[in-house]
């Protein structure tokens, strides 16, 4: 069914300011109802730790950072961020489905192969995942959520992400242009 849908012409994306206002309203609702912002990487972290706990529970109990999530009888999946991450995936899928944007494809610059793009995506993801835990939050949990409630550290963090990406953009321009 997804394929017949996908054959229809994909609808254009929303104007960025409109998309931003919708996103901002969702973020406000999250804070208003629950007191928490939005997030992603914390959920991925807990999923990883869940599997790690199945294989090497002793190792979890000896590592302070992992202990907080899954030490002893703690279930790392017993956290609000887990349904939120599942919801994010479902929301992305539904929006793609209804707008004809579900399509198996690889988005990349014209000068690199699909394989190069996949390797870069994996490497970039690994660096991003590492950095997100280092900074105690990703773009959603730190920059977006922390930015909206005016956390000083979140604003400093946000500018350091942009600074670093701009500084490096020239060196990887072949990948995107």
């Amino acid at each position, binding site marked *: 069914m997804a394929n017949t849908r996908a054959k229809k012409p994909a609808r254009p994306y929303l104007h960025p300011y409109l998309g931003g206002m919708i996103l901002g309203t969702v973020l406000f609702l999250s804070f208003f109802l629950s007191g928490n912002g939005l997030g992603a990487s914390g959920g991925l972290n807990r999923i990883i730790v869940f599997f790690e706990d199945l294989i090497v529970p002793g190792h979890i109990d000896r590592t302070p950072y992992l202990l907080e999530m899954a030490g002893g009888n703690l279930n790392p999946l017993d956290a609000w961020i887990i349904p939120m991450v599942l919801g994010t995936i479902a929301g992305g*899928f539904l929006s793609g489905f209804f707008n004809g944007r579900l399509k198996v494809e690889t988005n990349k610059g014209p000068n690199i192969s699909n394989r190069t793009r996949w390797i870069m995506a994996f490497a970039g993801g690994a660096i991003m995942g590492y950095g997100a835990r280092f900074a105690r939050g990703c773009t959603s949990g730190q920059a977006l959520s922390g930015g*909206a409630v005016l956390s000083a550290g979140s604003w400093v963090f946000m500018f350091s992400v942009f600074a670093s990406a701009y500084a490096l953009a020239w060196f990887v321009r072949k990948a995107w242009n």
Partner: protein
Amino acid sequence: MAPFQLQAALGYWGMMALYFMLGLGFGVALELSGFGKSTKLAAQFYFKELTVLKVMFTAIITAMVLIFLASSLGLLDYSKLYVNTTYLWPGIVGGLIMGVGFIVGGFCPGTSLVGMATFKLDGLFFVLGGLFGIFMFGETVSLYDTFWNSSFFGRLTLFDFFAVPAGIVVVGVVLMALGMFWGGEHLERIFGGRDLQKEPKWRYAAAAGLLLLALATAFNGQPTLEKKWHRLAAQKQPLLDSRAVYIEPAEMLSLIHDDTRGLLLWDVRSERDFNLFHMRSAVRMEEETLRNIHRTGIDPTANQVIVIMGNDEKAATEVWKWLAMQDIPNVYILGGGINRWLETFAAEARGLMVKKEGPAETLRYAFRAALGARQPAAEPDQHLLKSLGEFTPKVKMTKVVKRQGGCG
């Protein structure tokens, strides 16, 4: 008042379902903005298409204005929102690492989920890479956890840092964002060849609307502790009227000698009185600190009792109201204040002080020297407890659930 105690209101699964719905909205908003497409995200860094900047900052200022407006109108309690704590240098280093991942991989963790959900293979590889990176962090953080836990500033906000009212920062951030949008659109025109004439005119109205709401927020101001008390007095005043939070000298003495929980003694009298006499381990607290407890780094979730003391009860009761409005649990008042305390243990300090007349809220004992805590009544012996007779204990410990961040 928002935010709500979701588990109490909806039950465990109801709460989880609501978080799922919020996630759903998040995913839809990201996908609608084009954040499932890595080329659109990466274009930001070549000035061709500043979608990332526009969506992100519009979202931040929209949410920020709504949050502070709701707080200003008394609909939302800002002090109960999760504000990311600041670990300055780990945040900067983590941000720099993430910037590298962003430009190499073309996604961030949240957007890669949407990319994966709409069958983008690069999104899938990014998610797998992200999981691997997160795994590696968990395995290596022990090597440098001193640095990772350094430069901690607690719940530091921009308006605390600049020491201005929150509304001013809200207006400032909106103006900064609008300036960035203006600059960004011109960069798109220069580098991306975009025709600005074709941009919708409603964006001016939206910008003006947000700015007006921000100005209204700043003008109305954030609720002071007194305003908050006015609103919540019906709930909290009975605790004062029934004297449920005033503890007797006898219970105070038993608390001092109870080692099973922490005890913070906060003296709110003048420095002069404090120097003449204060209880051992009491700390003198200034009004500024008491009104901004979150800046002190005191952990309200710890197993501890806080006892406030003045010369009599009036000043301490005012302070109790401030603390109640900041949701500090387990706060009590020394019944009768220091004057009654000295009266109770006067025999202990015989020769060091003399009773005298004086108006309320003053120290009605004259001391021969400013001995501070260096006198017996500062920490009377435990055996005196028997001679004081029975008392009804007032202290009941409440446990507080800590709010954790989305990436916690």
